[in-house]
């Protein structure tokens, strides 16, 4: 590119005042900058004043009040609905109203009824008032993301605003078809809303894990009941009759391990739990091929079944990585509380634990954390300190 050419380009750019936005040229030509010095305009930063930022008391009441202020500000020539709804959607998490249907309905009510109704099929199919329709579609998708199920009143609202052929109405119908289908589809249901208490969460987690066998019993112990315990906290322990039997049958020379912490995830909450685990039982995988007819032994005089090796089906607790004897979650996740747990188990029908060598193999780094509560929006960590 010749010098003259460069010059010309820069001249054009200058004339159009677009030099500031034309990055590829302005940033990568030191030669050009040396030749012609532009006097760059002073940058004007545009600050968007967001009324939701200014609110001190961020509650549902103040949020609804903000919507009311907007609606009542100009009842006849209301304008800027779309911008207002978008900014309101953005601030939902701060106000803690992202799961509140009433708030979403109040936001939809910001749009005037009857103004955006299409008058012909062409208008209807070509998305009459597209910005407004897209805005409400985004609102509905935010509802879906927060798993808020709309109600029938919302349909009336949307139909009054956009008509029966409006795209938000179609999206509403889709949501009303699919969302109730998934709402209770999980075979491991959780309460809604989730409890915020650590104890309740840990109880939920242990109940859910031990649900694998209906004979499992979830017991709540207190460390204070054990003499010489340092901590004063709760222990949620799960053990079934099968596990008790397995533990009583275990080899007294082989140690059992207290392992953990492992985590289980319950809708935004990580909960730590510990396992009492022994060495895996040797499992004989070799099986006799029933189609093999090389050596048929004909049992004329014996009533015994011809199959030689009958293997007991292993229970869910006997896995290839070990035999799980019990599970627990404690309030402090400390070594001391786990020791109390073992003492409690020993008193509660596992006398073998008194003679079995018990080895602690704990990962140290998460020692002081019981529940790490990480919600989707903010980084909220709940830590309960040991000691």
């Amino acid at each position: 590119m010749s010098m003259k050419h460069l010059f010309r380009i820069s001249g054009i750019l200058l004339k159009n005042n677009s030099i500031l936005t034309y990055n590829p040229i302005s940033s990568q030509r030191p030669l050009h900058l040396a030749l012609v010095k532009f006097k760059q305009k002073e940058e004007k930063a545009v600050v968007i004043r967001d009324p939701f930022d200014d609110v001190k008391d961020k509650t549902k009441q103040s949020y609804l009040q903000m919507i009311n202020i907007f609606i009542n500000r100009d009842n006849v020539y209301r304008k800027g609905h779309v911008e207002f709804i978008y900014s309101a959607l953005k601030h939902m998490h701060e106000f803690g109203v992202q799961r509140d249907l009433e708030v979403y309905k109040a936001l939809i009510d910001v749009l005037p009824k009857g103004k955006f109704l299409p008058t012909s099929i062409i208008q209807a199919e070509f998305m009459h008032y597209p910005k407004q329709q897209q805005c409400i579609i985004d609102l509905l998708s935010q509802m879906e993301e927060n798993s808020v199920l709309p109600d029938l009143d919302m349909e009336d609202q949307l139909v009054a605003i956009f008509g029966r052929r409006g795209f938000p109405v179609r999206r509403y119908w889709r949501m009303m078809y699919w969302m109730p289908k998934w709402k209770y589809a999980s075979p491991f249901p959780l309460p809604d809303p989730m409890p915020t208490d650590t104890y309740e969460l840990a109880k939920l987690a242990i109940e859910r894990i031990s649900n694998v066998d209906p004979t499992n019993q979830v017991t709540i112990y207190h460390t204070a009941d054990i003499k010489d315990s340092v901590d004063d906290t709760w222990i949620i322990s799960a053990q079934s009759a099968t596990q008790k039997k397995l533990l009583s049958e275990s080899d007294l020379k082989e140690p059992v391990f207290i392992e953990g912490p492992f985590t289980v995830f319950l809708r935004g909450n990580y909960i730590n739990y510990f396992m009492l685990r022994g060495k895996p039982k040797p499992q004989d995988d070799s099986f006799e091929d029933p189609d093999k007819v090389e050596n048929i032994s004909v049992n004329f005089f014996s009533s015994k079944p011809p199959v030689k090796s009958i293997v007991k089906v292993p229970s869910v607790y006997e896995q290839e990585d070990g035999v799980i004897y019990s599970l627990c979650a404690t309030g402090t996740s400390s070594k001391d509380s786990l020791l109390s747990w073992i003492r409690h188990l020993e008193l509660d029908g596992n006398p073998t634990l008194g003679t079995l060598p018990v080895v602690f193999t704990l990962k140290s780094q998460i020692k002081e954390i019981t529940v790490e509560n990480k919600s989707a929006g903010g980084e909220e960590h709940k830590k309960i300190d040991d000691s």
Partner: protein
Amino acid sequence: MNNISLFRNCCLKILNRSRSLHTTNKLSLFWEKDDRGGYPSTLPQQGIKEKMRSGLAEMKEEIKLWCHEMKENLESDPQILFRPEEVDVAWRFKNPESLEKWIATCDSDYNEGFSNCTLARNMYGNAVFSGNINLRVPKDGRVYRAGYCNIKTKPFRRSFKRETYLNWIGYNTLVMKIRGDGRTYLLNIGARGYYDVAWLDQYHYQLYTRGGPYWQIAKIPFSKFYFSSKGRIQDDQHPLTLNKISSFGISAQDRHGGRFNLEIDYIGLEYDPKHVEEFAYEMYKVDKGIVSV
């Protein structure tokens, strides 16, 4: 007559007028460049020379595979008996080569997010799909939702790299032995069609995991899988065509960020004679022009 010829002339004039310079963007609403939806491949790409060299080396294996296929054709002994309540394993991870059929991707591979994930084998020969879902949206003004990790089978091939489909026509249930962390995962079954509008068709169902140390066997009938295209559930639903399975995948994309872990022993198929449902979703007729628009 005159009018018609005038109209014809006008039409011809308009059609003949060629535009050398396009000032408007091309509207490629339905046109697909490739069956990856325009996303680049995350696998290492080879140059032409390397391709030639490695292709020659692969020839031996391909011919072997082709001979095997021919033999199978001659034997013509297809599976006609599907034993009820017996699981036929489709994927298992007992040997290290089994991971080569799979590929793990996440949004950070395409600069659309900050998640990361891996698919590996552990000491017991189970696949472990783990990683971290990050919901942070990159500030590029284009992406407005982020946070997914995904594993998927590589395209199924016959000899000489010819594409093929899996045929699961005799089965009606998907069986998975898994050990999850309590999250909900999404199962994706690819049903790639012939034309480009159908390239990104998939069928989905959720995989709910219990969490904890115990193995869990998830049985999901194929009738429950719902139809979607490009990740959007479609209004016109049809049951999955079981003889045209183009891929299988698992996504971790529940809207809670954080680390996740899913251990898979096997993914199998089963014929359950007690399950007679063809499709779990209503197929009634709806008003014209309301759905699928």
